[in-house]
C-alpha cells in the first residue's frame, strides 16, 4: 500500500508543467493517472506499475533504380506501447514468454497521427485494458511455472530507480528538399548505368523525424526528438559460377545537415559499385586458415557482432519450451563471462550515450534518456581486456540488480539492454598505420607457410548470420599474395568455427579510428526492432587466425537475355 501511495505522489509531482500544450503527453499522463488509481478487475490484483511509450514517425522515402524514380512516399505513423505489471517488483508478470514465444511483446497500438487528446486517450484506454487482462493471466501462469520448475533463485523483476525526466523540443522540423533529393537519388542510382556486371541496384533515401514520449506510474517522463536519416544502396550481382550475391551499403546520419555533399555520396556509390562489380569475376574460394585483416565496415561489424551484441540482452525470459529459446531470442553470451578476459589486454571498451559526436562526426547512438526513463552515465565495459560490466535495463540478473540506463527498443518490443555509442580503444604500442598492418598480416601468413593472406572489407549484416554462427560471412574478402601484396577479390566464402576467441586474437589495430553508425537488430527474432547505435573503434583489426571455406550456397543459372541497357 505504501509503495502505491509513494508512486502516486511522485507521479503527480512529475507531471510536466508544459504538458498542457502537448495534447499527446497530456492524454498519456491523464490516462496513466486513471489507470493507476482506478484500474482493477473484480478481486484481482491492480497494476503496481504502468508505462506508456509513444513514438511519432514521419518518413519520407525516395528511391530510384537505374536513374528513374521508383518510390516517392510520405508516411506518418504514431505507435504506442503499454506495459502493465501486476504482483510486486520482486516477482511480477514480466519476462515470462509462456508457450507462445511470438506473443512475448508489449501491447502495441497505432494512435491518431493528428494530435487529439480524446483520440489518444481513447486508444490508450483500450490498449491498457487489453494489456492489463493479459498481464493478470501471465502473472498467474508465471507463478505456476516457478512452482512447477521449483525455481528458488530469483533476482527480482523491476529494479528501483530514481525516475528520470527529460523534455526537449524544437521549433520546427528541418524540411527535406524533396525536389533536390529526388534528383540526387536518381543521379546516384544512374551511376549503375556504368556497371554492367551489376544485375540490379537501388538507391533509397529515408528521412524520418521522430518524437518519443514516455510516462510511467513512478513519475518518470520524457519527450525528445531525433532524426533518422539513411541512405541505402542495394546491389545484386551474379559471379561467373552463377552464385548470386547481394549486399546493401547503409549510411546513416544524425540529421539532414550532416549528410555529406552529393560528390561525396557519389564517390561512395562508385566505390561500392566497383567493389561489387569485381565480385562478378572473383578468385576461387578455398579453405583458408590463417591471419585475417578486417578493414572498414568489416572491422566495425566484427566488433558489433562478436562483442557488442553479446554484452547486450543479459536477461532471458522464462519459456515453456526452453530448448526453443535460441531460435527466438538472441542471448548475450558474453554476459556469462563477467570478470574474464574477452578482448586482448591492450584494449578497453566503454559506452557513453551522452556523446553525440566524435572528431566532428555525429554519433547516431546518442540518446538522453533510455526507454525506461533512466538517464545513462558513461559505462566502462572492458578494462585491460577484462569484462567489467554489461548493458543493463531495469530487469535484474544475477550479476547486476540495477539499470545502467541502456534499456532500448522500438515500440512493439520490450526494451532490452543495448548499446548507445560504444568506444573501443587500444594502447598506442598496439596501434599501427594500415600499410604496417598489411605487412604484419603478410608476415604472419608467411610464418604459417601460406602463399596468401586474407583481407575482409565488408561483412554481411548481423541479421544474415546463420543460426548458431557468431559472425556473418564476408561479402568482400580479398586474397593478398605474400610475395607481392597484390589483391584479388575472393569468391563466395564463409567462416567456420568462429568462437569468442577471435576477439582475444586481435593482435594489432589501426592507428586511425572510424565512426560506424548502424542499427542494432533487437534480440527477438520474431519481432526485430532496430535501434540506432554507434561504434567508434580502430578502422582495422588484425586477427591472428580465422578459418574460411567456400560457401555452401548453390549457384543459379545466368540470365537468359543480356541486360537490355547494356545489350544495346
Amino acid at each position: 500500500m505504501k509503495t502505491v501511495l509513494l508512486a502516486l505522489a511522485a507521479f503527480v509531482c512529475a507531471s510536466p508543467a508544459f504538458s498542457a500544450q502537448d495534447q499527446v503527453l497530456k492524454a498519456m499522463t491523464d490516462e496513466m493517472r486513471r489507470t493507476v488509481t482506478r484500474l482493477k478487475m473484480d478481486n484481482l490484483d491492480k497494476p503496481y506499475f504502468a508505462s506508456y511509450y509513444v513514438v511519432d514517425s514521419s518518413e519520407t522515402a525516395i528511391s530510384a533504380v537505374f536513374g528513374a524514380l521508383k518510390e516517392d512516399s510520405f508516411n506518418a505513423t504514431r505507435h504506442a506501447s503499454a506495459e502493465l505489471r501486476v504482483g510486486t517488483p520482486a516477482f511480477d508478470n514480466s519476462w515470462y514468454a509462456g508457450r507462445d514465444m511470438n506473443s512475448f511483446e508489449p501491447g502495441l497500438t497505432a494512435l491518431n497521427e493528428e494530435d487529439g487528446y480524446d483520440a489518444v486517450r481513447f486508444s490508450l484506454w483500450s490498449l491498457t485494458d487489453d494489456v492489463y487482462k493479459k498481464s493478470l493471466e501471465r502473472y498467474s501462469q508465471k507463478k505456476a511455472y516457478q512452482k512447477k520448475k521449483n525455481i528458488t533463485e530469483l533476482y527480482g523483476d523491476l529494479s528501483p530507480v530514481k525516475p528520470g525526466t527529460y523534455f526537449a523540443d524544437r521549433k520546427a522540423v528541418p524540411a527535406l528538399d524533396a525536389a533536390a533529393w529526388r534528383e540526387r537519388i536518381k543521379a546516384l542510382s544512374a551511376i549503375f548505368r556504368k556497371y554492367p556486371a551489376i544485375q540490379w541496384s537501388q538507391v533509397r533515401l529515408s528521412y524520418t523525424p521522430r518524437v518519443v514520449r514516455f510516462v510511467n506510474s513512478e513519475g518518470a517522463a520524457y519527450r525528445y526528438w531525433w532524426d533518422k536519416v539513411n541512405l541505402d544502396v542495394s546491389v545484386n550481382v551474379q559471379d561467373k559460377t552463377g552464385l548470386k550475391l547481394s549486399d546493401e551499403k547503409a549510411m546513416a546520419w544524425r540529421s539532414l545537415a550532416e549528410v555529406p555533399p552529393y560528390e561525396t555520396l557519389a564517390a561512395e556509390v562508385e566505390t561500392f559499385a566497383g567493389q561489387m562489380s569485381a565480385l562478378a569475376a572473383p578468385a576461387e574460394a578455398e579453405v583458408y586458415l590463417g591471419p585475417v585483416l578486417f578493414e572498414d565496415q568489416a572491422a566495425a561489424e566484427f566488433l558489433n557482432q562478436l562483442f557488442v551484441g553479446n554484452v547486450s540482452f543479459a536477461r532471458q525470459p522464462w519459456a515453456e519450451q526452453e530448448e526453443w529459446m535460441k531460435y527466438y531470442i538472441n542471448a548475450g553470451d558474453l554476459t556469462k563471462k563477467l570478470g574474464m578476459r574477452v578482448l586482448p589486454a591492450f584494449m578497453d571498451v566503454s559506452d557513453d550515450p551522452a556523446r553525440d559526436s566524435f572528431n566532428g562526426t555525429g554519433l547516431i547512438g546518442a540518446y538522453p534518456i533510455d526507454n525506461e526513463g533512466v538517464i545513462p552515465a558513461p559505462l566502462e565495459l572492458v578494462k585491460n581486456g577484462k569484462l567489467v560490466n554489461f548493458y543493463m535495463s531495469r530487469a535484474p540478473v544475477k550479476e547486476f540488480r540495477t539499470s545502467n540506463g541502456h534499456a532500448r527498443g522500438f515500440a512493439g518490443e520490450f526494451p532490452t539492454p543495448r548499446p548507445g555509442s560504444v568506444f573501443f580503444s587500444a594502447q598506442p604500442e598496439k596501434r599501427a598505420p594500415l600499410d604496417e598492418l598489411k605487412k604484419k598480416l603478410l608476415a604472419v601468413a608467411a610464418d604459417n607457410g601460406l602463399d596468401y593472406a586474407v583481407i575482409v572489407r565488408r561483412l554481411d549484416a548481423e541479421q544474415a548470420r546463420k543460426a548458431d554462427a557468431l559472425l556473418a560471412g564476408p561479402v568482400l574478402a580479398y586474397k593478398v599474395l605474400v610475395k607481392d601484396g597484390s589483391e584479388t577479390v575472393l569468391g563466395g566464402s564463409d567462416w567456420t568455427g568462429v568462437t569468442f576467441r577471435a576477439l582475444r586474437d586481435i593482435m594489432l589495430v589501426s592507428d586511425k579510428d572510424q565512426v560506424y553508425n548502424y542499427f542494432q537488430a533487437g534480440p527477438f527474432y520474431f519481432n526485430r526492432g532496430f535501434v540506432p547505435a554507434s561504434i567508434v573503434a580502430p578502422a582495422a583489426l588484425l586477427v591472428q587466425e580465422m578459418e574460411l571455406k567456400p560457401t555452401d550456397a548453390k549457384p543459379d543459372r545466368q540470365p537468359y537475355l543480356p541486360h537490355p541497357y547494356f545489350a544495346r
Partner: protein
Amino acid sequence: MKKLLAVILLVVPCLAGAQPAQPPQTDPLLEAMKAELGRSMETLRAAEASPLYYLGYEAYDKTSYSVSAQAGSLYNDDYRRSRLLDVDVRIGSPALDNTHEMKGREASNSKRQEAAALPVENDPAALRSELWNLTDKAYKAALDQYAKVKMNKSVTAEEEDKSDDFTPGAPHVFYEKAVFPDVNKEKFHAMARRLSEKFKPYDFIYDAAVRLSVDTVNRYIVNSEGSSIVTGNTYVRLMYSLYTRTPDGMDLSRVKIYDSDGLTDLPSETEIARDMDATIAQLKAQRVAAPEQPYSGPVLVESRAAGVFFHEILGHRLEGHRQKSEESGQTFAKKIGQPIMPEFLSVYDDPSQYRHGKQFLRGFYRYDDEGTPAQKAVLVENGVLKGFLMGRSPIKNFSASNGHGRRSEGRGAVARMGNLVAVSSKTLSPKDLRQRLLEEVKKAKKAYGLVVSDIAGGFTITDRYLPQSFSVNVTMGYKVYADGRPDEPVRGLNLIGTPLQTFSRILVTGDEAEAFNGTCGAESGWVPVSAVSPSLLFSEMETEKVQKSNAKPPVLKPPFTDKEGK
C-alpha cells in the same frame, strides 16, 4: 496453407474520369513493356527444349489516397503512387503447361507468383531493366515448374477432365486510362473529424472509425498474342465502423460502406450522420439482445445480404477452373442442363455492367487480367444450370473464356466473379414478403422466423477434402414473432448449410434488388466485386452459434464518457 486456400472469403464489399483513348505510342510504360516482351519472346521461345509459348505482362499503375479519423482527430492521411508488375510465363503447350494442377503428394497449387515494383517514372531504360529482371526470374521458375508438372502427371492417376491448360486468345488493342480525381483534402479531413466525433457520447462503443479511400488503378496488359490494353478504374469508398463487446464476451461490430466511382456521388454528410445514428441505435439494441440459440426454420434474407449469399454459395462454385480441379468439390461440374434452383430464378455475371440503377458496381471492368474483354456469362436460366465463369483455363464442354480471369498482383489469374446478378420472376412486395414469412413460421409451428438484414461476408468450402458447406455470419437481423410481438434483434449466429439443399428451399423473392459492393478474396488474390439480388425467403435454414472471444468488456469506461475519471 492448404486450408487457407480452401476457404473463400468475402469481406464487405468503380469507373470515373476515364480518359478518351490516347495514342498508345505516347505511353512510355506501354512501350517499354512491348519492347521487353518482344525481345524476351524472340529469345526465350526456343531457348530450352521446353518451349515458351506464351508471355504476358500486366502492370498495375496505382494512385491511392486515404484519410481516416477517430474520436474527432485524423488517424491517418496517406497518399501514394506505385507500379507493380506481374509476369505470366507459359512453358510447354496449351495442352499441358507449367500452370497445370499438381496432384497427389506434390499437390501444392498456390497461385502466388513473383511480382516486382516498377519505377513510377517513365524512364525506358529503368523500366526495361526491371522488366528484364522479373522476366528472367519468372521464366526460370516456370521451366522448373513445368518439369515438375510433367513428372507429376506421369506418376499420378489420369484426370477426369482432360481439358487443356490454356485457351488461345485474340489480340485486343484498347487504351482508356482512368484519371485520379482531385481530392479536396481539407474538406474530407474536416468531414472525417466531425463524423468521427459522433461516436464519442456512447460508452458502449469500444472502437469506431470513419475512413475515405480513393484508388485509381490503370492496368497495362501486353502479351505475346499481340494484345495491348490499358484500362483503368477508380474506386471511392467512404465507410464507418463501430465495435462493442457484450458482457458475455461476444464481439459485435457494424460497418457501413458507400461505394462510388467519383467523389461527387458520395452521400451528403447529413445523410451519413443520419445513417450513423441508426447504426449506433442498432448496435445498442443488439448488444443487450440475448445470444441466439441454434435455430432451424423459415428465414428471410434481405436483398443485400442475399447478394452475398449468392456470391458465396453459388458464385464460387461456378468458377470454371474449380470444375476440373481434382482438389475441388465440383458440386455443379456435371449439372449443366439440370435444375439446381427454383425455376423462377436466373443468375448471370456481367462485369461490363457499370451500374445497378444509380448504384455504381465495383465489379465493373472492361478487360480481365488475361486480356479478354468482359462479357455477360449466363450461369443459371430459369433454375437450370447453363454455364460457368470462365477464364482462359478451359474445362470439358467449355473451352472459351468469358472474360472472368482475374487476380490481384502477385497471383496467377483464375475464374472469378465480377457483378453477380440474380433475377426472379416470382416476387412479392416487402410487406407481402413479411406476411409470407409469418405464414411459413406458423406452418412450421415455430414461435418466430428470422430476418437477416446484413451479413459480414463469410466463407464457403469448395475443396474436396472438407464438407461442401457454407457459413455466413449474420451481423444484423431480427426475430419476427408469429404471435405479433414486436421484432427483436438477434446476435451471435451464422447461417449454415449445403448449397444444393439450400437453393431448393427458396420459396419466393422480393420485388426489388439492391447491390452489395465488396472485395472478394480467393486463391488469385483480392478483387473488387458486386452482387445484386432480391430478398430471398427460405422455407427452412439452419443457424449455428458464433465463436466468441470470451473477453470481458473493458474494466473502465471510455475516458470521455467516464465522469468519475475526468
